[in-house]
């Protein structure tokens, strides 16, 4: 049952227009890295961390790609009214939500990881430790964002609009510039993982959340929003 729904969902989520949008968004950090390589004298490491990791990857590419995919994972079924094809089966709500989450992560992960790995290899001159730390942070943050946006897609028909507002107003603006509320930002915990895994390089940054806390919070967000999605599917009227 898991396998069937998982593969159907993958096919639902890999429409040509969605893939093109994801490719376009994922290419932006790579272009930024190319620019950084070409202007090596003008950018220091802190600026690169801010512009590439904190802003471009953490506050734009990663959430936008997961938003595009994860809101559609259940949102498409709601919109075209195929959700009842799933809920009117003997499958428990968990058995419906887990393949949907897994398919969203499967589709979102390659462009996000590709973008993160290529851009960090370029910008940080192939530093393996940076690539490992960025990969770890991006993977955990993708899990968290996917579960949040999966829930959003089942909760409102305007999930893309609300998701974009959340990304730009909250993750990009408020928590980017008001340090006191960064504890309410997935991006802050992603940066906590990146900096925690590569302590030698980023240890002097006092704004960063510790590695254990970051990992626990990102996993907790994933679990909590998955539970909320299951609960939502149990209580909602299915169109």
């Amino acid at each position, binding site marked *: *049952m898991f396998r*069937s*729904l998982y593969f*159907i969902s993958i*096919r*639902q989520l890999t429409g040509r227009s969605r893939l093109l949008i994801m490719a376009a968004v994922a290419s932006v950090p790579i272009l930024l890295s190319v620019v950084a390589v070409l202007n090596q004298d003008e950018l220091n490491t802190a600026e690169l961390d801010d512009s590439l990791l904190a802003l471009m990857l953490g506050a734009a590419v990663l959430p936008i790609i997961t938003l595009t995919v994860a809101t559609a994972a259940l949102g498409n079924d709601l919109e*075209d*009214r*195929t959700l*009842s*094809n*799933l*809920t*009117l*089966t*003997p*499958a*428990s*709500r968990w058995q419906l939500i887990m393949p949907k989450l897994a398919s969203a992560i499967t589709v979102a992960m390659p462009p996000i990881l590709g973008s993160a790995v290529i851009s960090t290899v370029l910008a940080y001159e192939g530093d393996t430790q940076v690539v490992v730390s960025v990969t770890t942070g991006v993977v955990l943050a993708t899990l968290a964002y996917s579960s949040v946006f999966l829930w959003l897609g089942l909760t409102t028909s305007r999930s893309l609009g609300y998701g974009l507002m959340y990304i730009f107003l909250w993750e990009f603006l408020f928590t980017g510039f008001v340090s006191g509320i960064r504890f309410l930002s997935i991006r802050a915990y992603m940066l906590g993982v990146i900096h925690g895994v590569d302590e030698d390089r980023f240890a002097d940054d006092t704004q960063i959340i510790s590695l254990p806390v970051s990992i626990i919070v990102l996993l907790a967000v994933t679990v909590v929003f998955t539970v909320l999605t299951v609960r939502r599917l*149990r209580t909602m*009227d*299915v*169109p």
Partner: protein
Amino acid sequence: MTASANRIAQPGATANPVIQVESVSRWFGSVVSVSDVSFDVYPGITGLLGPNGAGKTTLLRMITGLAAPSEGAVRVFGESTRNNPELYARIGVMSEHEAVYGFLTGREFVEFAAKMRNVENVKQASADAIENVGLTFAADRKMGGYSRGMKQRMRLAATIVHNPDLLILDEPLNGADPRQRVHFQNLLRGLAAQGKTVFVSSHILEEIETLADSVLLIVNGKLAASGDYRAIRAALNERPYHVRIVCSEPRSLASGLVGLEDVDAVNIDPDGALIAQSRNVLSLQMALPRLSQSAGVRLLRVEPLDDSLESVFSYLVTG
């Protein structure tokens, strides 16, 4: 025939009804979609009949567990369908929407439905279900290219693939051509003959008349009548029909019409057309040409005024 007379007795009815609807209401804000509806359904084919917007789909959604009643209770096989997915192993539901995955072939669609219902021999069960709906020839084509009728039939195949004891079908004949309708009806009769329960909704009187053993009539969210179709039909036959007649000499024709035994009353509407009221509309139809010819009146138009389902229902509701 009132809303309270709503326990459907069917030939071969068992002690336990398959579907029990008890004082169910559903409202959306201040709009009442279904109001205090109660009935039981037993094995065989039961039709849920009502005009568009009467509340049929809302009622079916509550029976299938897709929506919760605002008040009252629904039980299927003695259990609530809400948050009870195990029950769907015994139920097949076909909604009114053309909800298919256009990128799948018909066979893939039915096999997916079979896998989601833990059917043991997926390939064989799917092939049998597709053959049952007569679509084996199109099974390996993408569903996005199917006609509406074909989509409906393939959806029916997906609905019956796990051999459910109860089938709930919302307007299943929409988009089907006459040949497909006959095929559909024969298939449903065959399932009912096997002891299954088929609960089917429609807004078309004739569709239910030819298919269902028993009917539930719903109008404005309320149960207007229920029971054996023939009893309801007899009640309908007692109702006077109104026929509007446009002719060259209304007063001359009116004097002739009032002399007919089967005409109860004749009025002239503001446009000068005659409104004849009769309990035997066939007799009126036969007499009208002869009468107009003898009176030297030219008939311009003859039209029934209350042939629609809505008028039938309002008659049943208001008496």
